[in-house]
């Protein structure tokens, strides 16, 4: 059975991280209130590019995980995870997970010094061209091929954060079947009606696109797998933010909403459900911190930490969002109330980067609990 590398992984938030959180939260409160986010989902611009620019230029958080020598902030995945918590809490429609996590992790693994500074600065929004449901430890995708014309051909369905991306990182097979990872700027992204309205997906088509190979063979396989593992590990922090929003908003609502002459939150059944939810969210916080720590440390325990994080976060966050809808009563079921944005985010995130079922199956292999 695998052992966590360091029993004493720091599961707290540092003062720097708390300060970072405060800055991101303040920006989101000012620039991305929920009513605006909801209205945006039915506009021509479901992704908030102005908010993205503010995160990049004003807070400089798009390159947290990138070393300073490659144009980043030289922080790491733990700090990136704190930003994700806040983005989840706000259901913010920005391509942070896709560009600053998935694509950045792939570029870091491939040590692509050409794109890293551009992506770290937020100038280029990049997307990893894999279906959003793809889990770590999956077979290398064959959806895109490098043909004899030296160009990439293929279609990749349901890619997250690709709608505003200007550069794709495309896993593709060449004519010998050798895996490669290519940077591509010539593609079309067809919008898909997505369950998560604040993270619209797109179908990508590469119809003879030129690509710059940034990794090949084993290195490409490793870069893709590391990116997906880090993505799965860090997505848990975004899910934590969603769950925290659900818990806090619902707690505030049941204190104020009266029925039968009493606050709804004075009924013990409601109290106990929220207490149970608080326990789950507190556990998710520890799990998410552990996963971010494993990513930050490049720990050999990352596959376990990531699978654990997704197996756990996907359950808790969906329950949190579902409880939020239920305990808001009819109000929580209306379009006007933001609860549905979080429900859709929670359910989609539970499928993203592998379902809980898929991650439990991975754990069975990793910790020797096979059939």
């Amino acid at each position, binding site marked *: 059975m695998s052992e966590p590398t360091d029993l004493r992984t720091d599961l707290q938030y540092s003062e720097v991280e708390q300060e970072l959180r405060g800055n991101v939260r303040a920006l989101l409160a000012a620039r991305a209130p929920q009513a605006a986010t909801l209205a945006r989902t039915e506009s021509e611009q479901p992704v908030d590019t102005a908010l993205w620019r503010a995160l990049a230029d004003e807070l400089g958080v798009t390159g947290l995980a990138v070393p300073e020598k490659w144009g980043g902030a030289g922080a790491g995945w733990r700090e990136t995870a704190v930003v994700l918590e806040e983005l989840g809490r706000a259901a913010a429609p920005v391509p942070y997970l896709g560009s600053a996590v998935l694509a950045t992790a792939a570029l870091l693994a491939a040590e692509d010094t050409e794109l890293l500074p551009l992506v770290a600065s937020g100038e280029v929004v990049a997307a990893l061209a894999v*279906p959003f449901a793809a889990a770590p430890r999956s077979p290398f995708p064959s959806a895109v091929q490098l043909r004899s014309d030296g160009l990439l051909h293929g279609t990749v369905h349901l890619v997250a954060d690709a709608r505003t991306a200007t550069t794709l990182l495309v896993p593709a097979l060449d004519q010998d079947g050798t895996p490669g990872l290519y940077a591509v700027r010539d593609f079309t992204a067809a919008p898909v009606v997505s369950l998560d309205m604040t993270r619209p997906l797109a179908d990508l088509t590469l119809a003879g696109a030129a690509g710059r190979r940034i990794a090949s063979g084993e290195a490409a396989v490793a870069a893709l797998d590391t990116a997906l593992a880090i993505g799965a590990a860090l997505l848990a922090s975004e899910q934590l933010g969603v769950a925290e929003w659900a818990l806090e908003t619902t707690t505030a609502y049941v204190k104020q909403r009266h*029925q*039968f002459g009493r606050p709804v939150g004075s009924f013990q059944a409601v109290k106990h459900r929220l207490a149970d939810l608080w326990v789950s969210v507190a556990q998710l916080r520890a799990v998410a911190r552990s996963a971010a720590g494993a990513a930050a440390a490049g720990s050999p325990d990352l596959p376990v930490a990531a699978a654990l994080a997704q197996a756990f976060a996907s359950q808790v966050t969906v329950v949190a969002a579902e409880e939020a809808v*239920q305990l808001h009563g*009819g109000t929580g*079921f209306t379009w006007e109330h933001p*609860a549905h944005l979080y429900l859709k985010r929670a*359910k989609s995130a*539970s*499928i993203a980067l592998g379902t809980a079922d898929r991650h439990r199956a991975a754990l069975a292999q990793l910790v020797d609990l096979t059939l």
Partner: protein
Amino acid sequence: MSTPEVTESSLRAAVRELLAEHDPVRTPVAEFLGARYDAGLAWIHFPEGLGGRAAPRSLQQAVNDEFAAAGAPTLDPGRHGIGLGMAAPTLLAFGDAEIHRRFLRPLWTGEEVWCQLFSEPGAGSDLAALGTRAVHDGDSWVVDGQKVWTSLAHEAQWAILVTRSDPSVPKHRGMTYFVCDMTAPGVEVRPLRQATGEAEFNEVFLTGVRIPDSRRLGEVGDGWRVAQTTLMNERVAIGGSAVPREGGLIGTVARTWRERPELRTPGLQDSLLRLWVDAEAARLTGERLRQQLAAGQPGPEGSAAKLAFARLNQQISGLELELLGGEGLVYDDWTFRRPSHPSMEGGTPGYRYLRAKGNSIEGGTSEILRNIIAERVLGLPQEIRVDKDVAWKDLPR
């Protein structure tokens, strides 16, 4: 209670007689149903002249079966369920002869659609907290307020309406119940959009709506008791029809499982089997309830059936998205629309997942149903009430 000569066979004979005179297939629906009403074969336990023949309710099934076997028309429950299930018994119980004469027949024939103006933004689970004011003015009433979650309000001619007629007494005592004309001046219906993107329901704004006192049901101040009659009939109506195995959402997911072997995993199989078991248990429970009702023993299982149904729909639709994996990330259409016939089975998996969330809220939240079971079935002590002896106007909100 019933005249001794009404028997199942006499009823079946009466149905066959009616069918002989009115071709069930070729006669226009309203005309056929009118004939059925006039023959006392609509609600057989209603009085003679009002669609019935004062017969035992337990024989209704035989009458329905006989009509069904002949292919006779019935009304769409999605459009007429509130009228048939809730308005009709209340009109019968609390209306006078003029009310009976005016409303029951066109309700039964489907010529008039009904809706229910009960819930308000501040009175959901706690219906008795409602604040829509009715002020007596001459021989009519003037009504002001806002109702919410009203199905069919945009299609209905008539509504059953509960109002606050006296704010100075404790909340259960100051309500009055009316039949409200939905075409009257001051009635404004606005669609209420929900998480699915569509608007099944409405908000109804009542501004200076005048209702003649002759359209009052029950005594002034006795509206709570009238509303209880309405709601009791709602609960009885749920779970009333026989369902085959895999008849609900579980059948949809089971078919996906069978048709899509590439989606299968051992873990998802276990989840599916657990839900299959729960769904089959709920189905058998509904069937047992149906048999009890047919045998004239209505039990409190109606609340239990709705609780179980809501939980199952939510769990099954949640599993369906997980089973579909990437395909579960898409939706069909967020565009605002007004479906006339929302159907769980007809929608997409994403729609089902979202719509099922409403199942534990609409028609009595699961929390309220648990209270009902705990207090009325198990006899556990009532919640401590802080609102029993306080004038409605002084309640905290």
